[in-house]
Every structure is written in C-alpha cells, then in structure tokens.
C-alpha cells in the first residue's frame, strides 16, 4: 500500500537497448499483428523470453528443458537478457533466482522432473517472500526407475507451494502464458512466483504452428517499486527477516503471524483470478457444454481428449470437453458450472496418481460422477482411442448400455 513511483523505469513507447519497443501488454497481446512460425516448444520458450524484458536467468541442464535454457543463453549472448549464469544444481538455481528477484530483477528459469523436486524447498520460499519469478516446468517422470519421459506427476507436488500454476496445452499456450504470466504474477496485489507448465517432449520437442507477437516489441519492465514487500538493499537485507523470524519464537502470536502470512499468500493467488481471466479469456474453455458425457483435463491430455471428442462425433455421440488452463488458482466455480449437467465425467491424465481427478472431485457436487481416468504414465502416449475405450467400458459398467446419439 506504499506510495511508489516509477522513477527511472523505461516508459511504454521507448526502446530498449536492442531497439525493441516497450509496449502496453493489452496492445501487444490483443492488437499487435501476429506472425506464424513453425517451432518446437523449446524454440517457443526462447521466442517468448526474447519479448519478455527478462533481467536475469539461471540455467541448469536437465532433460527435457536443457535446450530451452541453452537457447535463453543465446538470447543473453545477443543482448536480449540482462544477465545469465549456470547454477551448481537446481537447488542452487532457484536460490540464485530468489537473489535476483529480491534485488528487484525480472527472473526466468526452467527445470523439469527430478530437478523440480531437488529445488523444491525454494518454491514455497519464493511464494512466502512474494517473489514473482517465472519458471517453466517441462514436466517429466520423477520416480525411480529413472525416466526422462513425459509425465505430469511432478505437478501434484507443486499444488500447495503458493505459486501460480498455469498448464499449457500446446506451443501457442506456452508462448502466450510465458508473456502473460509475468503481467499477472507481478501485479502488486498478486506478486507471486508463477510456474508455466508444459508437458515434456510432447510440447518441448515437437513442432507446432505458433502465432507470435512482433519480434521488435516487448512487455514493460518489471517495476520493483510496486512490490508488496521491501526490495533487498543494505537497509533491509533478507537476512534480517530470516535471522529474527517470528517462527523461531514459541508463542501464540508468532504462530498466528505465520498462519496469517500463509493466508495472505493464498489470498494473493485468489487476487490473480481477475487479471488472468482478462488475459487468458477465462480460466477454462468448454466445448459442447450440454453433453451428458464430459472430458476434463489440462495440458496435452486436453489435445488427446479433443481427438476423442472427434471420434465420438464421427459415431454420432456428443461428448463435451473442459480445458483447464490454470491449476492455481483452480477454477472451481467455472468447473462446477461447466459440469453441472454432466452425468459422466472422465479425467484423462498423464500420471499414475490422478491428482487432477481429485481436484475436480473436491469442487463439484455428486462427485461419484467422476471417473479418474484413463491414466497413462512413465512416458506412455494416450491415443484418443484409449480414451474412447475407457469411456465405453466405464459406461457399460455403470449400466448405460447405449451412448447418447445425436
């Protein structure tokens, strides 16, 4: 609630050192002409970061994000990223990102799978410190035996870190989410770290058509003067908060302070809704909302579900689809509304745990309508035919002999 001014901040309409024009986000996203390109997801990450006025990026190799982080290094070499370094491990990377953000920099990094879990302690620390760092998780298997293949299990670990979590379905989402993510995450009343998630290999290593904003336009720089917490300087180094933390005191009010702090982080996630709805055109997308059979998921499971909907359509069966764009904030009200008429709800997922099905069951009534599946894991693909078979098998078990035609 402080009286910040943007003294010295580069203004909209001015040029950065690479000659890119600093552009109002709404104009950049919704009015600027877009050009089509055929790129891998890793290349898309590079193109988005090129337009994101990033001050600092830290890299550490782990499949399947290594190419993307190395391409960000090329951006640094070309002068598009302020500073760039390699960390000693993922844990170190996330700590170094925190240092940059504490100092008022816009920070970008990427990681995946075991790297995410190795770095894990830092994510709730980022959220509690209100650091709007952006990290792209190119999700993959995390458990032994080792797998580098696509798997969304790691998202389950991230759910209660206090971060915003957006799940890209494809390369277009990835491009837009990286840029729009900064705009939402850096709002003074939000000011939280954001994880932009894409499914490893399925998105990072495949080529897709992407409509990109002009190369010579960038989003405005991060304004650290609008932060809800103090920036790090010699007057308020973070160590002074860490050295005398209230959590080290054993009394009722210190516990309550910590509880209130946690509530404030979750409140900040809630405040992101209105900005996100505006920029992403809603937290969900719905196809065939009046269908009795609905598929609902996030990431590339949505793409596979879209194909399953098409296969059913070819058979004359109407099946609906809900695409969830943001996992945090979770679109509880939107999901309730979208599923209110559904009799059978299927949740295809690329993980063994079925965490998305649990999320959905927790926010709707008559949760017995939900079938947690089909599931694949460990890098398996999920052909649309598998989704169709799962629906047909489940409905047969439920005693629904014929699917609804027409």
């Amino acid at each position: 609630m402080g009286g910040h001014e943007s003294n010295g901040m580069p203004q909209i309409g001015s040029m950065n050192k690479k000659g890119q024009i600093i552009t109002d986000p709404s104009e950049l996203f919704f009015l600027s002409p877009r050009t089509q390109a055929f790129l891998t997801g890793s290349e898309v990450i590079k193109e988005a970061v090129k337009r994101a006025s990033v001050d600092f990026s830290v890299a550490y190799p782990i499949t399947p994000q290594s190419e993307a982080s190395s391409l960000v290094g090329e951006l640094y070499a070309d002068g598009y990223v302020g500073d760039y370094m390699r960390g000693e491990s993922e844990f170190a990377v996330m700590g170094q990102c925190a240092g940059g953000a504490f100092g008022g920099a816009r920070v970008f990094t990427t990681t995946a799978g075991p790297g995410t879990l190795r770095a894990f302690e830092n994510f709730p620390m980022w959220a509690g410190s209100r650091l709007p760092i952006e990290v792209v998780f190119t999700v993959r298997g995390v458990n032994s035996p080792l797998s580098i293949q696509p798997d969304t299990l790691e998202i389950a670990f991230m759910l209660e870190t206090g971060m915003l979590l957006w799940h890209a379905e494809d390369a277009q989402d990835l491009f837009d989410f990286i840029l729009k993510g900064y705009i939402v995450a850096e709002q003074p009343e939000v000011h939280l770290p954001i994880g932009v998630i894409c499914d490893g290999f399925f998105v990072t290593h495949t080529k897709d058509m992407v409509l990109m904003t002009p190369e010579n336009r960038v989003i405005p720089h991060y304004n650290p003067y609008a932060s809800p917490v103090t920036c790090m300087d010699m007057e308020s180094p973070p160590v002074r908060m860490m050295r005398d933390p209230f959590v080290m005191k054993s009394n009722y009010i210190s516990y309550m302070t910590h509880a209130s702090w946690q509530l404030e982080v979750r409140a900040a996630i809630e405040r992101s809704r209105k900005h996100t709805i505006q920029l992403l055109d809603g937290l969900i997308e719905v196809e065939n909302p009046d269908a009795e059979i609905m598929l609902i998921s996030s990431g590339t499971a949505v793409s596979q579900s879209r194909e399953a909907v098409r296969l059913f359509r070819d058979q004359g069966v109407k099946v609906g689809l809900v695409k969830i764009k943001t996992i945090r904030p979770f679109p509880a009200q939107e999901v309730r509304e979208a599923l209110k008429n559904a009799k059978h709800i299927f949740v295809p997922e690329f993980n063994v745990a079925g965490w998305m099905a649990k999320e959905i069951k927790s926010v709707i009534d008559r949760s017995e309508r939900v079938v947690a599946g089909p599931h694949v894991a460990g890098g398996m693909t999920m052909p649309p035919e598998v989704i169709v078979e799962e629906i047909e098998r489940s409905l047969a078990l439920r005693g629904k002999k014929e699917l609804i035609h027409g």
Partner: protein
Amino acid sequence: MNPYSVLRGPEGFLPPAAALAGNILPETGQGHIEGQIVSEEEAIEEAARKFVSAKVPTIFPGPLVLWGWNEKAIRTAEAVERLSVAGGINIIPMPDYRPKYPKIDPEAEINPNHPNLTIWHNKIDVCMFVGVHCHYANLSLKIIRGGTACFTMAFCAHAGHEDANLTVRDILPEKIDRVTEIVKKLKLNSKKF
C-alpha cells in the same frame, strides 16, 4: 456484492483472509466499507467520520511515507501530518517489519508481526495504515481483526486491501487532504450542538 462482511473484531482465533472468502478488491474510483464495494468518495467520507467519532484515532505510517525517498512520499507525509493535526489523530509509525523481541515499545511503534500489542496498549479504536508495504499491511490487518476491536482503514497506493474494514486505493496526497477537509467540517459542525 462481496460475500463476506469484514467487520470490526475481535473476530476470533484465526480470521480468514477476505479474498479466500470470495471478496474482491475495488476497481479504480471505488473503495470498500466492511467488504462492500462503494464509491471512493463514500469510503473517504466514512474514513473521516470514523476518525471524528473515535476515542483514540491513530495513523500508522509505514516506511514508504516515513522516509522522504521521492517527491510523492514527502507530499504524502505532509498530507498525513495535516490530517493528524486537523483531527487530533495520533501517529505511531511502522518504521520496519522485523519482529521486535523481546518486547516492543507499543507507545513508540507498531509492528506487523504483533500489531495487536500496540492496539491493546494504547486502546486504539480506529486506525489508518498508509505507506506500509501491501504484504505487511495485510498481515497486520488480519491480526488486528482477529484479536482487537479496532476499526482498520487502509489507504493504499495500489489496489487496496480486502482485509481492512475500509479501504481507499490509488491514494495520492490529495485524497488524504480530502479526508482532512471532511474531518474539519465534521468537527466544526459538531461544535454547534
């Protein structure tokens, strides 16, 4: 209409964050009173009325107003001082955010980690936060609402605060002067009775 009424406390063991209860922040040109969205002018008028009717009205200026780090901070501090003088309102600063152990001096300062101590000690029944970083203001507002009967008002340079009993957003020195102007009028009128 926001679903949750943000009323004067004490609200209990751990009051919820109003945003988690479904309350949304006011848009530009608006404020809120006890969680309900009103026009900015209405919120400013109510802030003045609260100050005038209080037994121990107090302003808690934070670092962004206390330190003259830019021209706006200086002008805001001057406006806060004018309000304090016009309304007979105490000023107790929140100079930084570190917990003050083993014991805070509640007559000298307020701290976001245990703001209730300052409220209780000074028997403050109406307060205004201004120039406090948003995160720490929200922390304080929740704890005050939980354990005290103080009516909290947050004058914010950004989007406002759901956890205050009253908020005005996008503040400028002129908006604080508007509170002062109404306080003066109310005090003048009350003398006629």
